Each structure stands twice: as structure tokens, then as C-alpha cells.
């Protein structure tokens, strides 16, 4: 599904990723944890194709295809989705319009027909209801004036509608209270399937109580320094990162 091999990347001459290797098979959820500044968010940007980073070595394979040469929108059309830590505001563009534009843009890139308006509305309403997103919210400009919880729920709504093959959640739990965390996690869990993989980036074990990972990986200084099962997250919660980071250095 998603295979990252020996990935090196830099920004403005500064090395950010240092030979990162990670493999997430279809149907599995992998969690990446690690201290601040270990390069977790950067990893998600590079996999999604943000242009300010330069990949100096390595490969990122999505379903066996190296996607590093593809522009971001083509990676998206091949089924890669990134739920942003800080979703971006777009004034004047209603959420509804944005969702429909994104769905149709991906369909077009894949050579599929555009969605009919009536079908789109039906699909969107059903998905929004599940995430307690009101129709009123969908008429507002994208993310403008949304609370932290609303923004994150909207990220999950987008993921639901775009039906990606692989989803990356970048600190989706940040800024959420317990109720919002539950709604968001349920949304993600309902998308779990045999064909779909996830990479969950988080600081805290708390999120992993709701979204149960199959594997846990600790990241430090641009690479994975330790991998294990769900228990590893509990261990980290108890002892912190210090010992693991120190023993890896």
C-alpha cells in the first residue's frame, strides 16, 4: 500500500528527513509518534507533494507506484489524502462548492464522469449528518470562522467523500475536546477497510484509544528509531520519549 524507502529530504539546505523507511500494508493503521521537531508533519507534507521541500534520495510508493514525481493533485487522484493539522481558510468559496469541485477534479483526473448535482447533494448530506456537520456550516466559506473541532470534522468529511486509498492524519486530535475527538475518531474508524490504509501522526496516546493502530513507530531526527505493536504507545505514554531517543542516538 504505502511504502517509504530510505527517504531523505531538505528545506532551505536543512536536512529534515534522514533515511526514513516505513511500510503500511493495506487494511492497517500505522501510528507515528515522536517529540516536537522530529519531522512528523514534514513527512506528511512530503508524501503529499508540497513543493518547498526537496527530496534528495529515496522513494515513496503508493500501490507500487513511485509518486514523488507527481504533482500533488495527481497524488490525490490516485487516492492519497492528507487531513491537515491546520486546515486552510478560503474566503468566498463555500464549503459545499469546495467539496464538489474537489470531487469532480479528482474524477476528471481519473477520466471519470462528473457527479450529477443531485447525486452529490445526496452523498454529501448523508456523510455530513454522520459527522454532525450542519447544512448551514456547508454554506459558509471553507474553514472561515470555523472552530477547531469544526475544521477537523470537515477534514474527516472530505476524507469520507473523496474515498481515498490511503489517508494520512496529521495531529487530527490537536485542539479537540473529548466529544469532538470521539466524533472524529468514529468517522475515521468507519472508513477503515481491508483495502484502505492509514498513517496516524500524533503526540498523544489518547487518540490511539479511539483509533486502534496495528503498528506504532517512533520518529526522531527524521527517521524511525523504533517500531512495535500498540503496546509501544502505552510505553511511551508512561516513560516519555527521552529514553528511546537517547538509546537510538
Amino acid at each position, binding site marked *: 500500500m504505502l511504502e517509504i524507502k530510505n527517504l531523505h529530504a531538505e528545506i532551505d539546505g536543512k536536512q529534515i528527513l534522514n533515511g526514513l523507511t516505513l511500510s503500511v500494508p493495506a487494511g492497517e493503521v500505522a501510528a507515528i509518534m515522536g517529540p516536537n521537531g522530529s519531522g512528523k508533519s514534514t513527512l506528511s*507534507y512530503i508524501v*503529499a*507533494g*508540497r*513543493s*518547498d521541500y526537496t527530496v534528495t534520495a529515496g522513494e515513496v510508493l503508493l500501490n507500487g507506484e513511485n509518486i514523488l514525481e507527481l*504533482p*500533488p*493533485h495527481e*497524488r*490525490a*487522484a490516485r487516492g492519497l*489524502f*492528507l487531513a*491537515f493539522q491546520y*486546515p*486552510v*481558510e*478560503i*474566503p*468566498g*468559496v463555500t464549503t459545499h*462548492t*469546495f467539496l*464538489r*469541485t*474537489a*470531487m*469532480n*477534479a*479528482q474524477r476528471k*483526473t481519473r477520466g471519470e464522469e*462528473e457527479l450529477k448535482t443531485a447525486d452529490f447533494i445526496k452523498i454529501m448530506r448523508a456523510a455530513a449528518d454522520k459527522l454532525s456537520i450542519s447544512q448551514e456550516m456547508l454554506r459558509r*466559506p471553507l474553514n472561515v470562522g470555523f472552530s477547531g473541532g469544526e475544521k477537523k470534522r470537515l477534514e474527516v468529511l*472530505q476524507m469520507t467523500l*473523496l474515498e481515498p486509498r490511503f489517508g494520512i492524519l496529521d495531529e487530527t486530535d490537536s485542539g479537540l475536546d473529548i466529544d469532538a475527538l470521539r466524533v472524529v475518531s468514529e468517522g475515521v474508524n468507519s472508513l477503515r477497510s481491508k483495502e484502505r490504509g492509514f498513517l496516524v501522526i500524533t503526540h498523544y496516546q489518547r487518540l490511539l484509544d479511539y483509533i486502534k493502530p496495528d503498528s506504532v513507530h517512533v520518529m526522531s531526527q527524521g527517521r524511525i528509531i523504533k517500531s512495535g505493536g500498540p503496546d509501544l504507545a502505552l510505553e511511551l505514554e508512561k516513560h516519555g520519549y527521552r529514553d528511546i531517543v537517547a538509546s537510538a542516538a
Partner: protein
Amino acid sequence: MAAVLETLETVKSVDVDAYKYGFVTDIESDRAPKGLNEDIVRFISAKKNEPSWLTEWRLDAYRRWLTMEEPTWARVDYPKIDYQDLYYYAAPKSMSGPKSLDEVDPELLRTYEKLGIPLREREVLAGVQGARVAVDAVFDSVSVATTFREELAKSGVIFCPISEAVHSHPDLVKKYLGSVVPVTDNYFASLNSAVFSDGSFVYIPPGVRCPMELSTYFRINEQNTGQFERTLIIADKGSYVSYLEGCTAPKRDENQLHAAVVELIAHDDAEIKYSTVQNWYPGDSEGRGGIYNFVTKRGDCRGANSKISWTQVETGSAITWKYPSCILRGDNSRGEFYSIAISNGRQQVDSGTKMLHLGKNTTSRIISKGISAGRSSNTYRGQVFAHRKASGARNFTNCDSLLIGNACGAHTVPYVESRNPSAQFEHEATTSKISEDQLFYCMQRGLSAEEATALIVNGFVRDVLQQLPMEFAVEAQKLIAVSLEGSVG
């Protein structure tokens, strides 16, 4: 939304330097000798068989123009124009006077078809949109066809070329021509008054709501020819009219001059809504060619409770110098200015409005959205003024600028002056850039860089697009995307 997607299709289908309307119509034309002098002014007047008062009016304007200097205060830069090196009159040879559509040269009809402007009424009726629009088509210096005239005449609406109105409604023309933009108003207005060729004349009688949209479509075809059209719209007491103008020109390497004058008069309780989609040839990406668009547009809210609203979508021209304004003379009158000005390549735009509050409790609203891309320069210049007697005057101004890339510039130059202590003026201005974050976010969701830019820009101009008549809003949306193509690096 379909429009945005369609927009994107359009973007994809054209090259960076492509201007869709850049073709030339091969048609024999009748031109005045090159250059400008009193004989040329008389020549134009004689061509149109004008009464002597109008010939004198033109000559007076010409003589005054000779004493004036070209204005230099705008933030635009262009080589000196040689006014003796231009043709001031050009007309398709086949046009010797107003004719029925059946007599119009088929080559001309084809030109307008190609531009998407159907001149045959039955074709308009068969159109899918259902909305009917009466069109006056002006080709270089003459009007070639005006549609739906008979139907409009049933409600007493006069819609015809101004050259014809001079003969058919001399009293109205004499009374109103130059009453809003005086002959000596400014350099380009004086020039226009001397040599104006054709344009539209509209009169809406008291209490009449004009039954359809009126529009004029201007086309410059001839080489080295200036276009100097003159539009005069009068809305009598309690009447309403919505009017739209569109403009295109062939791609040519040399610059062409367009100096128009538009005068609007709204009497008591009357309303005029004037929309422009300006798409003159902007020149190529290196700044070769393109139209110099020096235009004076002014509306006079002469009566109490009258209203004039300007909406403009400016995407074309190498240089734009244009300030559609309102004189709020009548008590409780209202002026509005909604503008989207997009510049790309080497285009230079200096545009804005003037709201002159003279009457009591007059209100005005200015919403300006400037978008600069490429190596262009985009200036908003606006004046809001309250006269000593304009008690209760209110203005709200909002100027937003959006920058795309690092090589363009945006400027906002507001002049605000109040001589009445009860006047309330508000001014808001923002400048922003399309951020990498916004682009990346949209692209992660599946939009290409160009689709993302078009979406963000359409969001930015949404308040203004909503002011345009429905059919034209779609057109304008497409135009915005096409104008911005190649702006994403």
C-alpha cells in the same frame, strides 16, 4: 460551480498568449484621412449628416482639446501618443446608413456570431438561456445592427445608435449630451466630444421598467484606428433599466486608442444598472500591442431617490484609465460601484470611482477587488466627497487587492473629503497574496494549480460577481480564469 469547472476547461484549451477574440474581419472599410484637424471633425460630422449645432459642438470641443494637456497623474506608463498618426473614422464600406438586419453584410454577422453575440432575433429567441437581451453592435465607428427595437418601442423605450438618435430624437440628444461629462471635462473626454463616432442611445420613459436587458457590443477591427464611442442613457422618473457593454479587439502588435464617454442620467425614483465586461486585447506577455483604454464614465443621480449602479469586470486592455462615477445630486439618491480589475502580463490598470455627495441623505457604496498577476500594475484610485449641504451623506468603501506571484504590484489611492460634519465615510482596505498554504491545500484535494488559483480568485471576487446579471456572471467567471492563465509559476 459548473461555471468554475467550465472556466477551467477554457483555461486548459488555450495557450498562454492566446486571446480568443484576436481575429481580424476582412472587410473593406471607408476611412477618414489620417490625422486630426478641423476638417476631419467636419468630415465625421458630415458622414453622419449631423445638424449644424452638433458640428459646432464638436468643433468647440476640438478647439478646447488643443489647449489641454494629456493627464499624467495616473500610475500608468506608456510612450507618447502621436494623435496625428491615427485614423479617427472607419466604417465597413457596405454600411451607408441604418439598415435592416437582412441587409447587413454577412461578414459582419459572422464576426458577431464568432464573438458569441447573436444579432438575429430569432436566434436569440431560440437560445437555451431563455433570457433575452437587446443588442446594439458597434463595429469600429458605426453601429451595424440594433436588435429588438420594435418590441422595445412598444413600451416606449428608445434604444438606437446615437448617430440615429441625433436625427430621430434631436431634442433629447441636445438636452442631455454633454450634460454629465462636459466638453471640457478632461483631455480624453474633449477628444471624444470632437470625434465621437457612434454608440448607443437609450431613453426609458417615466414609470417604465425596461422589459429586457440592453447591451452594446463594441468591436475595434481596423488598424491604427481609434474608437471613440459615446453612450447616453436617460432614465426618466420612476423608470428602471439594466444595461451591459462588452468589448473586444483583434490582436495587433501596435497599440490602439479607445477613448469613450458614457453619460447616465437618472431622474426622480429612477434606477440605472450599468455593467461592463471589458475584454479589449491586453497585449502579449511581453507588453507588445493592446488597447489604451482611456474612458470617462459618469452617472448623474439628478432626481430624488434615484439610483445608479456601476459594475465592471475589467480584464483586458494594455492600459486602463477609467473611473465610473456618480454625482449624487438628488436627495436620498444612491450610487454604487462594484469592480473586479484583473491585470496580468504587462498590463497597467489605474481605475476606481468618484462618489460626489451633493444632496441630503445620499448614500454610496464602493466594493473594489483588484487582482494582479505576472508583471502587471493595478491601482485603485477613488474619491469620496461630501458637499457642505450634503447632510447625512454616507459612504462605505471596501478595497481588496490580491497578488499572485512576486513581480506584480497593487496600490490603493483613496481621496476622502467631507465638508459636512454629519457625513459618515468608512474605508476598509486589505492586500493579500494567494498563499502557498491555500494552493497546496486545494491541490491536495485534487485541484491542479490553475484550478486552485481560479477557485481562490473566484472566491475573492464573489461579492462583485453577484452584482452582475446572471448570464454575464457566468461569462465573467470564465473570463477571470482565462485572464489569469499562466499566472501560476
